């Protein structure tokens, strides 16, 4: 039997969503629903022409903190399989940054668990984005809307 791929990966290399979905369905049978999200580097920023985005991270903490989020999703919903990939390093407009895929028996759990993982990842996982443009470098600010999105999952 082939070695199971890890549920959570932090890497510089790009990923292929169809490969990830195949892994997801291979890991756990009985799935009736797969919900996924892919985050990309937006092509243009309203205030500056961004030529690159650098993703910094805290290497010892990232996979662990995402795994905790995944574990919480498994406790809250009937989740069969989860795959999360988050890239780090230097990315360009249009590049894929992050993938979250969830397989469940039913679509309600799949949609909710996928959104939950993304909302928590955006507020808890130790990554920081820096935009590089002709005018210089600029650290992306955290958004109130992300904090609010994470807040709505609290009991």
């Amino acid at each position, binding site marked *: 039997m082939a070695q199971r791929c890890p549920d959570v990966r932090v890497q510089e290399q790009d990923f292929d969503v169809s490969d990830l979905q195949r892994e997801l369905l291979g890991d756990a049978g009985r799935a009736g629903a797969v919900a996924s999200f892919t985050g990309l580097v937006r092509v243009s920023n309203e205030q500056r022409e961004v030529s690159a985005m650098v993703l*910094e991270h805290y290497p010892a903490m990232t996979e662990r903190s995402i795994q905790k989020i995944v574990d919480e999703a498994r406790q809250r919903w009937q989740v069969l399989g989860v795959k999360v990939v988050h890239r780090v390093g230097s990315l360009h407009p249009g590049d894929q940054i*992050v993938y979250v895929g969830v397989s469940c028996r039913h679509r309600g759990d799949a949609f909710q668990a996928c959104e939950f993982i*993304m909302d928590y990842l955006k507020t*808890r996982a*130790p990554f*920081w984005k820096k935009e590089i443009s002709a005018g210089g470098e600029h650290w992306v*600010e*955290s958004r109130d809307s992300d904090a609010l999105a994470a807040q709505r999952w609290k009991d």
Partner: protein
Amino acid sequence: MIKVLFFARLREQLGVASLDLEYSASLATLAALQQELVTQGGADWQAALEAENVLRAVNQEEAALDQVLADGDEVAFFPPVTGG
């Protein structure tokens, strides 16, 4: 020895990515360690580390200022995260 790491904008503000502090009984908590860094670093370090939105971790887990420290721990200071 306690290893202290700084990330992202905080690292740039302080000009330091990491430093080691000799562990002693006076570094009993994260608050005490932060105060030691402020005492050594001066006003710039105080402004950076005492800012309202600074996040902290001990041994790669989010931690509050009252977190107890032990010799060999790894401490990190960083701004609000912006991944995803």
